[in-house]
């Protein structure tokens, strides 16, 4: 059976969670050439409320388009971290925005202050989602840095390319600095096959 890698990006409405999902799906699907299905769930509010985007990655046609058990969970606020970390596989990876997630329920997590980096280094809090995408390019073998960059530049408004490229780089730098968690074997094998 085809492999399946389930990703959930979560936070609150207004943080750009769904845009993150679209960009990640485009990077993996179009630029890295795998099968992807991206879905979303959000409330009727323009800001606030919960928001999540899911990306399912496979090497074949995807049947169920929503995440089943998570290989990767990105939590951009405390509530989403609390709500979803139980859906992680035993060897799934948790990535949190440590600016907003103060209480991390498990030790095996990458804590990176995406919002803090966006606010202090880039002076624009709204690019926290792009900083997080930059970090994902380093933390997960599912997507390459080049694919993420092309996908980001293809989706952001004209005139903001420089800011977004810097945000990506800041995310990558921060991710490289965090202590590496050993990657589950099954996934590393699978990636080796492809490359």
């Amino acid at each position, binding site marked *: 059976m085809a492999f399946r890698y389930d990703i959930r990006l979560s936070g609150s409405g207004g943080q750009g969670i769904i845009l993150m999902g679209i960009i990640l799906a485009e990077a993996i699907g179009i630029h890295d050439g795998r099968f*992807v299905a*991206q*879905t979303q769930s*959000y*409330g009727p509010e323009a800001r606030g409320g919960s928001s999540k985007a899911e990306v399912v990655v496979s090497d074949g046609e995807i*049947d*169920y388009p*929503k995440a*089943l058990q998570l290989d990767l969970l990105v939590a951009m606020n405390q509530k989403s971290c609390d709500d979803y970390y139980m859906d992680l596989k035993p060897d799934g990876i948790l990535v949190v925005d440590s600016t907003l997630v103060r209480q991390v329920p498990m030790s095996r997590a990458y804590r990176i202050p995406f919002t803090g980096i966006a606010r202090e280094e880039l002076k624009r809090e709204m690019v926290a989602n792009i900083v997080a995408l930059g970090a994902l390019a380093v933390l997960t073998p599912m997507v390459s840095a080049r694919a993420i960059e092309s996908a980001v530049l293809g989706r952001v408004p004209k005139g903001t390319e420089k800011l977004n490229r810097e945000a990506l780089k800041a995310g990558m730098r921060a991710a490289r600095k965090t202590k590496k968690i050993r990657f589950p074997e099954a996934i590393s094998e699978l990636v080796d096959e492809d490359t």
Partner: protein
Amino acid sequence: MKKKPLKERLLQGNEAVVEGSLSAGCRFFAGYPITPATEIAEQLSVRLPQVDGTFIQMEDEIASLGAVIGASLAGVKSMTATSGPGFSLMQENLGFAIIAEVPCVVVNAMRGGPSTGLPTSPSQSDVMQSRWGTHGDHPIIVLCPSTVRECFDLTIRAFNYSEKYRIPVILLIDEVVAHMREKIIIPDDEDIEIVNRVRPTMPPEWYIPYEDTPRGVPAMADFGEGYRYHVTGLTHDVRGFPTSRPDEVDPFIRRLFRKVSQNFADLQIGEHFHVDDADVAIIAYGCVARSAKRAVSDCREKGIKAGMLKLNTIWPFMRTDVEKVLRQAKVVIVPEMNMGQISREVKRVNKGEAKVFTINRVDGTIITPQEIMARIKEVY
């Protein structure tokens, strides 16, 4: 001619509907934005002017379908898109399009109801409304995609059927499929089959606008071309003028039904997934069919002979295919995100050959493969 390299694109279900409609030749859209169908209007407002088409944002959904009917009568392939609350408003004009036999496509991206309900959550609760929402005895064609690619393909089919049979076609999608993004390759125009309405070839004075034919579908003249005829919501004679003569009313209503019922083979499309030898069969449609497909694959791995019949055509109900499944399988499960709108139909055509069970979910979330698996274990 040199072939363009195929370009993969990551598209939303709604965006694929847009691409499908343009490929089918749609050049008019009138609508009113509503979640989860808004992206269709949003994209068409950009795309239609680029192909000399017309986009109008109307004051409401009643007027939207009214404008669509008017444009179609003038000879332009037309579409509107909405969700539950707007679809309710469209029912009046939907009936008009049926009785006046005006081809058009209505997209309903289903969200939770009744009323404004759950704007951003999926549902499949408009299955019966799409069949019987407008009053009076009438046939209807309703298609239901489950993938982004099917959104593209079935939109084209919807236009083709509406042109071929002079009937409004409803594309029933749900929030999951409408907002889901998948990778698709848009086929070249020359690889797409397009059907256009038959227009009159006789001189205008010989034209009988609602003439009965063996196919049941009269030729349709574009308004303004010199073929003058009367269009009304009243039951009409072959010339289009109101009549209440029983000997004219009866054949008219029967012809409306006949043009659909004698073409079931053309209209009823489904997907058979391991269903031919299945002991446990799932009958599903829309986003839930994807959960069912997963459950079937998981069952097969465990040695359980499961299968799925996916209904791409919801109405006219695929009785022949469903009956075949009911004969083959010992147990049939119908999972749907409503209280049992299609399962009731399945039970209606069941002659006691199989046991029919349901899974009903009305909380605004999709039925998961695990739920289907659990139900299979429970009943089989």
